[in-house]
Each structure stands twice: as structure tokens, then as C-alpha cells.
């Protein structure tokens, strides 16, 4: 399937019968960091949701292979157990479910066995230190009453514990202050060197802290331009006008 960790070919996808992705191609190899930028409504978040298997989206053409397997044949939880992770732009709150309980069960599900309590505590503590999180977080309900920054930190905390092979990070930098952004970036950078990362972002500021190997520009459901980190700098300076199709 082309040797990538994630291979997306000719992908078309719809939501409520509206086509959002219109023939998208993307390949991410193990250890690579890719960034996707684009205007609102370009289909960036849709791409992440389709890869993760959100039931609201329907694939109408094309393929997605992950680690050589046809991802579209896998249930959402099977994708997670296979090492795929998505950090949500707007993660759901789950009232009544404590963060600590949720993390332990999630880690057990992905690893296929419950972690030993003492080791898990150490692991958790180390990850929370990276992100500058307080232990009181663990007793709170998942994303319930969390600020935007707290939600993003919890997403990255999960990523660090689950150690995915492939992480899809959907606007993980939005709404973060400078300190939180640095903490989140440190979390992303501490992922295994073998992990692939797809960053979806509007701004170059995260890409200054997590340097991508490839930057893509997405317009109208397709990738229209790819390049190095300098592409993100140009977008920051010039916007997207120069990439828009001529009417």
C-alpha cells in the first residue's frame, strides 16, 4: 500500500449527503510529522473524523490504509487498539465519569490488559508533569466544566498514555495560552520517534514548537499544495489567496 503508516488515496466523503472530501491523497510514514492547514470549511476536521471512523461521515470513494490494513473495515475501537489516536477539537464531556477511571480503562482497552496500579500511577504522574497538570484533575469528570485549555491538555495526556503509532491532532492548539501551548507541544514532541503525527492547525505558532516534515494546504476537500515548514510561514504572511483556484 505504498509503504506509508497512513495511506489515503482518492478519498471522497460526505456528511448528510454533502460532499466534503473530494479526492484527497495523503501518505504519512512512521516517524513523520505532517501538518494540514486551510481555510475554515476546507474539510480538515472531516478528514480526521473520517480516518477515526466517526459514524456521521460516509466514505463514497477512495481508500484509507493504516499499517497495511484497510482501515475502513475496522470499528472505531479497533482503530484505537491498533494504535490510531485522535485528539478532538471539541472533546465530549462525560458527566459522572472520573478522569482517573476513564484513563485506566482506556489504557487497559488499548493495551489489551489492565496496567499494574503502581506502574500506572508512575506513568500517569510522569505524563501529567510534562503537561503541568495537577493531580486533582483525576477526580474530576471527563471534560465536564473544563476550560478549553484543560480539555486540550487532557487530550494530550491521553495521547501520552496510549502512545499511539499514529496521532491525529485536530486543532489541538486552538484556545491555548502560551504556557499551555508549550506544554502541549512538549507532549507531542515526547511521542515516540516512530509515531506518525498529523497536525491540523490554522496557525504557525504550534509549528514553531512542533516542526513538521511536511505541510499541506487543503482547499475544498483536496490537498492543493505541499511543502516544508516554509510553506506554513508563507501562509502566515500571505494567506490563502494565492492558492485559490482562478474563477
Amino acid at each position: 500500500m505504498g509503504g506509508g503508516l497512513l495511506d489515503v488515496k482518492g478519498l471522497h466523503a460526505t456528511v448528510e449527503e454533502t460532499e466534503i472530501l473530494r479526492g484527497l491523497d495523503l501518505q504519512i510514514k512512521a516517524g513523520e510529522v505532517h501538518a494540514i492547514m486551510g481555510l475554515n470549511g476546507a474539510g480538515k476536521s472531516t478528514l480526521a473524523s473520517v480516518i477515526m471512523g466517526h459514524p456521521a461521515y460516509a466514505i463514497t470513494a477512495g481508500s484509507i490504509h493504516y499499517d497495511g490494513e484497510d482501515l475502513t473495515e475496522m470499528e472505531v475501537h479497533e482503530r484505537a487498539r491498533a494504535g490510531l489516536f485522535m485528539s478532538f477539537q471539541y472533546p465530549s464531556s462525560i458527566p459522572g465519569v472520573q478522569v482517573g477511571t476513564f484513563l485506566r480503562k482506556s489504557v487497559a482497552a488499548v493495551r489489551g490488559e489492565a496496567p499494574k496500579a503502581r506502574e500506572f500511577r508512575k506513568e500517569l504522574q510522569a505524563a501529567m508533569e510534562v503537561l503541568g497538570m495537577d493531580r486533582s484533575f483525576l477526580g474530576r469528570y471527563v471534560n465536564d466544566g473544563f476550560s478549553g485549555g484543560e480539555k486540550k491538555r487532557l487530550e494530550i495526556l491521553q495521547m501520552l498514555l496510549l502512545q499511539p503509532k499514529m496521532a491525529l491532532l485536530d486543532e489541538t492548539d486552538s484556545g491555548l495560552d502560551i504556557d499551555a501551548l508549550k506544554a502541549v507541544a512538549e507532549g507531542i514532541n515526547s511521542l515516540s520517534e516512530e509515531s506518525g503525527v498529523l497536525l491540523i492547525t490554522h496557525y504557525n505558532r504550534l509549528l514553531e514548537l512542533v516542526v513538521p516534515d511536511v505541510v499541506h494546504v487543503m482547499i475544498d476537500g483536496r490537498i492543493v499544495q505541499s511543502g516544508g515548514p516554509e510553506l506554513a510561514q508563507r501562509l502566515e504572511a500571505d494567506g490563502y489567496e494565492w492558492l485559490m483556484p482562478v474563477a
Partner: protein
Amino acid sequence: MTTAVEDPSSAVHLWRSTPWSWMRPEEAEPTSIRMTLHPVDASVEATLGAGSPDLFPVVIDGPETTLPDVDDIARHTLADLDGAPMRLDLKGDHDAVVNVDLRAAGHVAVGRLHIACNGRAVVHLHLSGDAGWCGLHLTGQVANGCSLSVVVTDELHLESRVLRCDDWRIGRDATFETGTLSVGGFRRKSDLRHHLDATGGSVRIGLAVHGQGTRHDDHHVEIHHHKGHTTSELVANVACAGRSRSVGTGRLVIDVGADGTDAGQVFRNLLLSQGARADAIPELEVLADDVSAAHGAASASIDSGQLHYLMSRGLDHDEASSMIVEGFLADAFRPLAASEARRTLRDRLTVHLDCARIT
């Protein structure tokens, strides 16, 4: 029965969804619910002993007794059947939970318990047994400035019918909070009444109901603000599966002159199957001018966004659904300030759901 009391018709609000004929005990010699107080810390005082009939709102004093209100038929029946009411006296501050086991056995089991609190305490009433019909009447008085949390859990046999009545009176600057985990019995009617008798009083109620199979659970909760500057909060979370049915009515009454009252109640229903049904009917009777009173009710199935989120973290569909249901029910206990009360309820809920999954 020593007195002739007519059955309320199905037009009577309290008995509209659960007719009295469904809840009336069968003709059998009643046995008393066995009440056992677990040992408590020596530094505090908790005594369980014989109570007297006048601690309960309906006193049967002969064949001429008449009901002041047809709604009181349940209380009347419990008084009629139970000749040996009990009382629990609590003094001082109890840091640990005071545990009382209520064991209901036989065809018809009945018990009445009055709790008098002159301090700060968390009481866990654990109802269990295989009684075919179980009737329980709880009353209590929280003295001025005192604080009482009462947790009620039950593991009654799945084929039991349960009739429960509560009458609580809360004094000046006193706090009463109660959490109920309703999972036992196949048919249940609860009529829970709370009276804020003096200024500064506060009531917080958390109610979690789990319906399975054809279980029928009807909770009627009344909160009366007799005086001003009192507060109340009710959260009722109901999860219904199978062909179970739940009814929740919340009657909030704010008397004339009870200005400064702050009251809120919310009923949330989570429907887990096509055949499940849950009705929530909050009611307000506000007779004072300067009050804050809010109420709301909502019914929905499991949120697809929550489900997807948890599945994206490796939980399969059933595991994710279970986690959402458990969280939803546990969230009913959010109003309770006493962490021991919340923990007790949460632990019981986890055990119940684990057992439900296994069976």
C-alpha cells in the same frame, strides 16, 4: 387493616401512574424489617432502639381513624402493619458513615424508622432481603444548625414490590441531604417529602434509578419551603433499559412569605431501548414573591458523540455504553456535599452494574 380506607382512584395525581392496587400488600401476617446498627466509633453516640408511633405523621388511634388526605393511604398502611417502629438517635459529629442494615424477609415485611440528628452524620441504610412486599417509612428531624446525609441503597430481590415513604423536617440553618440508588425490586413506589421548617435550612437530593426488564419505578418527591431563605436542589437521573418504566414527579411548594427561597430540580431520563419509557413531571407551586425556582426535564438516548469519543479510546460499544450509563447515574449524586455519601452510593452503583452485566 384496622380501619376502612378507600382506595384512591386513578384520577388522584399521586396514584395516576402507579395505582394503589399495584402496591397494596397482599393479605399475610407482616414481619418486621430487621434493623441492625453496625458498630460505630466510641467517641460518638448512635443508638438504635424502639420508637413511638407519634414520630410518624399518620397515627392509628382506633377504628374511627380517617385519612386527612387520600394521598396518605401508603403511610396509613405502613402504620397499620408496623407495630414496632424504631428510632435512631445521632449525637455529635460522625466522621465515619453510620451503617444500618435493613433486612426484609417473608411475604410482607414492614419497617418504620425515625432518625433524629443533633450533630453531623452520614447514615447509610442498606435494604436487602427476599420479601415479596416491602414497606418502609423513614421520618427524621434535623435539629437547628445540624447536618444529616442519608444514603439509601437496596439490593432487594428482583421480584419484590417496594413501597417507601419519607417525611423529613429540617430546622433552622440545618442541612439535610439524601441520595437514593434505586435498583432493587420489580415494582416500586416512593413518596418522599421534605419540609424546610425554618430559615437557613437546606435540602439536597440525588436520585439514581436503573430500570431493567419490566421494572416499574415511580418516585414522587415533594419539597416544601415553609420559610424564606431556604434552599433546595433535586437531581433525578433515570436510565431505563428493556421494557422498564420510570415515573418521576417533583412537587416544589414555596409557601406564602417564604421569600428568598432558592430552589431547583431537574429530571433527566436516559432511554436505553425502544421499549423503555420514562416520564418526568416537575411541578411548581410558588406562593411567595421573591424567589428563585427552576425546574427542567429531559429525555434522550445515549449521546452518539460521547459514544464515539469513548470508542476512539479503545472501549468497544458495550463498554462505552456502560461507562456512559454509570457516569450518568453517578452524576445524580452531584448535589450531595458529603463525600462519604457520594462514595458509598458510587461504590454500590458500580457493584450493581457489574452484577447486571454478568447476569
